[in-house]
């Protein structure tokens, strides 16, 4: 008599019974055609706790604001939007589980998420297979939308942004030698770094130092000392503001005076709050700036501050907001909550006025948008130039 195996067998039977009794719906049910009044269920998966909580929460706040505003204005197709959010805890393995739950158990018509490309990549095949459209607010790795024709994004890809940054540094800053400082833990950072490097080299520049750090680290002096010794004209830091601010502070302490250049991950009020005078005169690329932004973006900033206790929205919040705008617009144009119709409507999005610019979805299901280059001046962002795709 083998107790463990017996108990194992009973566990198997028990689990199977639970499975057999579970509702067998594998299709979204939160739609229904024009079942008047019934809310449209939209799923969101984001990292609300864990290492990348600060980004997930930003994106979530932008998303919630958009949903609330749309509902206040009457909803979509006469129905209210109901947002179902699941926390991925910044952990791999969770997106698959939560997206399965949202689709199979909660029956959402579409999925919003995620910020991190790696987690988007995990969930995308599931959405594709279930024919549920997925809209990522800020995953920039090109591979995400390549998973299938149900996967979209409302931001530009790393390739585009990498080119923008590299060109700016080569042409406007006229730098010949550069150093790259990459967050080796973030696929966003690594992807962006790769494209920056490729373009910079194509422009005739040389990379004099390539160093890495782990996102979340606080001490960068070791690597910065090595970068300083290589004497670059400019330093690329394609990472997040949480690290960029400290990096600039420590660089200044060490007497490293070359300009630092980053991507949209820099954009947050925390950058100037933590970086203070060390981030003065540094540059970064992002999606929009109030000076060239539309009425919509100005209103967005105002409403965000009102809704979230005076916090200024960062790029991730703006993208979260836009992901809802794009989805809601698509549902409206599709005239139904059928997955296929929403997908087609999403693919046909053209010149939609959003917070981060005019969004047109191209044939790769990426957003064809311009980027802007900003410089930090007097603790605020000064608009320098726009780069069209």
């Amino acid at each position, binding site marked *: *008599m*083998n*107790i*463990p*195996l*017996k*108990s*194992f*067998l009973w*566990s*198997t*039977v028990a*689990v*199977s019974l*639970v*499975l*057999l009794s*579970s*509702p*067998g*719906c*594998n299709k979204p049910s939160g739609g229904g055609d024009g079942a008047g009044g019934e809310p449209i269920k939209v799923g969101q998966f984001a990292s*609300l*706790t864990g*290492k990348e909580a600060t980004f997930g929460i930003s994106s979530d706040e932008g998303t919630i604001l958009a949903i609330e505003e749309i509902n206040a204005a009457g909803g979509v197709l006469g129905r209210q939007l109901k947002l179902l*959010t*699941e*926390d991925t*805890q*910044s*952990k*791999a*393995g969770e997106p*698959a*589980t939560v997206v*399965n*739950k949202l*689709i*199979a*158990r909660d029956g959402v018509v579409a999925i919003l998420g995620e910020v991190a*490309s*790696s987690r988007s*990549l*995990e969930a995308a*095949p599931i959405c594709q297979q*279930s024919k549920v459209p997925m809209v990522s607010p800020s995953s920039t*790795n090109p*591979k995400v939308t390549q*998973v299938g024709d149900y996967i979209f994004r409302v931001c530009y890809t790393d390739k585009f942004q990498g080119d923008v940054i590299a060109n700016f540094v080569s042409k406007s800053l006229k730098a010949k030698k550069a150093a790259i400082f990459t967050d*080796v*833990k*973030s*696929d966003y*950072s*690594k*992807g962006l770094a790769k494209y920056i490097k490729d373009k910079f080299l194509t422009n005739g520049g040389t990379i004099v130092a390539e160093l890495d750090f782990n996102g979340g680290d606080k001490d960068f002096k070791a690597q910065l000392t090595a970068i300083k010794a290589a004497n670059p004209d400019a330093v690329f830091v394609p990472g997040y503001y949480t690290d960029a601010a400290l990096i600039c502070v420590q660089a200044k302490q060490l007497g490293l005076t070359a300009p630092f250049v980053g991507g949209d991950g820099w954009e947050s009020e925390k950058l100037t709050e933590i970086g203070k005078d060390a981030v003065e005169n540094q540059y970064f690329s992002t999606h929009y700036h109030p000076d060239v932004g539309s009425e919509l973006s100005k209103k967005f900033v105002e409403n965000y501050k009102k809704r979230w206790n005076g916090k200024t929205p960062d790029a991730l919040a703006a993208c979260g907001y836009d992901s809802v705008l794009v989805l809601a617009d698509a549902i409206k144009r599709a005239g139904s909550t059928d997955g296929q119709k929403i997908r087609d409507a999403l693919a046909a999005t053209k010149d939609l006025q959003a917070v981060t610019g005019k969004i047109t979805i191209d044939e790769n299901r990426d957003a064809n948008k311009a980027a802007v280059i900003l410089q930090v001046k007097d603790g605020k962002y000064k608009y320098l130039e726009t780069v069209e795709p």
Partner: protein
Amino acid sequence: MNSGAKRWLLAAIAVAVLISAFSAHFNRYYLGIAIDVGINIILAVSLNLINGHTGQFSLGHAGFMAVGGYSAAKLTLTLQSLVPPWAQPLLFIAALLVGGAMAAVAGLAVGVPTLRLRGDYLAIVTLGFGEIIRVIFQTSETFGAATGLTGIPRWTSFGWAWSGAALCVFVITSLVNSTYGRGFLAVHDDEVAAGASGINPVRYKVTAFVIGAFFAGIAGGIYAHHKSFLSPTGFDFMKSIDIVVMVILGGMGRTVGVIIAAVLLTVLPEFLRGFADYRMILYSLLIVILMLARPQGLFTFGNTNRNAKA
């Protein structure tokens, strides 16, 4: 060897495969959870061999899982286009075995240097190995680095996961209950006495690591083909802790308890999803309370004394 045990094993596998045949009718979410349970059973039972039966304190089990998962996935990704559809299950088995073997090698690499270490030192070193393995996968471009490996074919089904679990339980309990296996428990109880009685503690400790790692590797392979995606952050210290908690809650060394604990700890977070905000806070509080209230594990009934019984 208990032939009764073999019958239970075959019965378990048969049931698993039968259920699996109806997969399409099940809610995908619940099915996914059930497969997760199967994988966690393998992880917990394999760690139990090292921590529970042999009394070694290993905090790096996720590292072995990573080695197995990545190896299996890499093999599948490289060879899947060369293999005709009917042979895919064979490729899957081969990939799992390769993953297990690579993990076993890792287990050897960890087991041998740690021979002289006791208790807390062993814990740190295994933790260190786990971290080193994670850092290696995070930096290695062959394995996708920070982006991870995507597009792994979704070959894991309920049948595979639970048959794997049944096999793991079978092998480990048979091993521990055998005459050879008494050695593990002897080393656990008193290493010096065991050595004095003619049992080579070194051999047993290393064997425990190797076998434990092997199954963790298999679990990793099954996991890879379930989530279809591998990322180094999924195999960090926290993952190792998750598995350790299962073993502790189940009562170290009691396979039955460990299995139940694995089921519970996989399913419980799903119930807590309703309290999204407080979920992890509750989970950690639960761990503390359980340790305060019932530290011998939730599922140790009857005698907890040395009966050298699995």
